[in-house]
């Protein structure tokens, strides 16, 4: 495996875990998630690179409103 591929993998890893940590943090602070159970979402975010996170963000757009304190409503 050449250096370029290793660098690409490291880059992917950093991005994936940054996204995963942010979303898992959000999920931990949320009372309810789509589907009712958190475990499948944790697995999807942690194991399905990018797509799991993207799906979580699409299903829970409130993620973006976290520090938007105008009229933030975390329940759905």
């Amino acid at each position: 495996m050449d250096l370029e591929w290793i660098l690409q993998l490291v880059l992917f890893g950093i991005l994936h875990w940054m996204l995963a940590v942010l979303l898992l943090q959000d999920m931990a602070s949320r009372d309810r998630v789509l589907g009712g159970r958190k475990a499948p979402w944790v697995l999807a975010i942690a194991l399905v690179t990018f797509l799991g996170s993207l799906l979580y963000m699409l299903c829970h757009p409130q993620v973006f409103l976290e520090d938007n304190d105008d009229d933030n409503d975390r329940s759905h």
Partner: protein
Amino acid sequence: MADIEYKPRKINSGKALSIAIRSKDFWRLYILAVLMVFCSIFYYFGEIVDLVGWQGSRWDFFYGIHDIHRLLFLIPIIYTGYVFGTRATVLVTIIVVGICIPRALFISPFAHPLLRLLVFILIAGALGYLAALVRTRMKRRGYLESMMRREIGRLSALSDRMEEGIILIGPDYRIRYSNSSMRLYFGEVTSPYCYQYLRGLDEPCGEVCKLSEVLAGAVRRWRHELPDGGVFEVLASPYIDADGAVCQYATFRDTMVHEERGKRASEQQD
């Protein structure tokens, strides 16, 4: 006490949709989604044209180096920073990397595509973060200003309810504030200067004036007599106003009212 059964209110999907549409956040997210879709289509327009075979749309612009096309992603990143804050900016920046990376890895025939993408994303992320910072500071400032206005209103209401007249005089003899009791005793403040308002003079009161002593830090007490026989007990002390200027804060106590009250109280006791 009878148990009260809690029944959650059911909201039908139509009503939920209308509530969501009326929300400000819905439209903010909608704008973000539209921006992201538009930027992605613009970024991959050359490939889309090739895939669909729109011969008429084969413009050279979309087949050049994509650094310029990528610049368009600055709009959703900075928008997110300004509207949603820091965390959303990080999320959107990572999503933009996810959108741009297939071109860098598999399509771009130019040199160092990944490096150029990384440089762009670092700059864009920093700009988004700065926008989020500006937003946070503006919100904080707005919050503090509203708090200050509320406090000023509260203090003003408190001083207006006092029986003593209160007047704040600046070092230039200008009246900065007077409460409603003061206006009741001396009338509406028609002149900006204290000597005109309190004594009807055209220039400062001279030796009688205690302003310079009070501004130097002394607390002074004296009796202020009116031509109609009214007498006020005045207590003046230094006060630093919001602009940092040392002013004279004086309270005017109507002695007639208090003497009458004292007499009535002693009569009642007898």
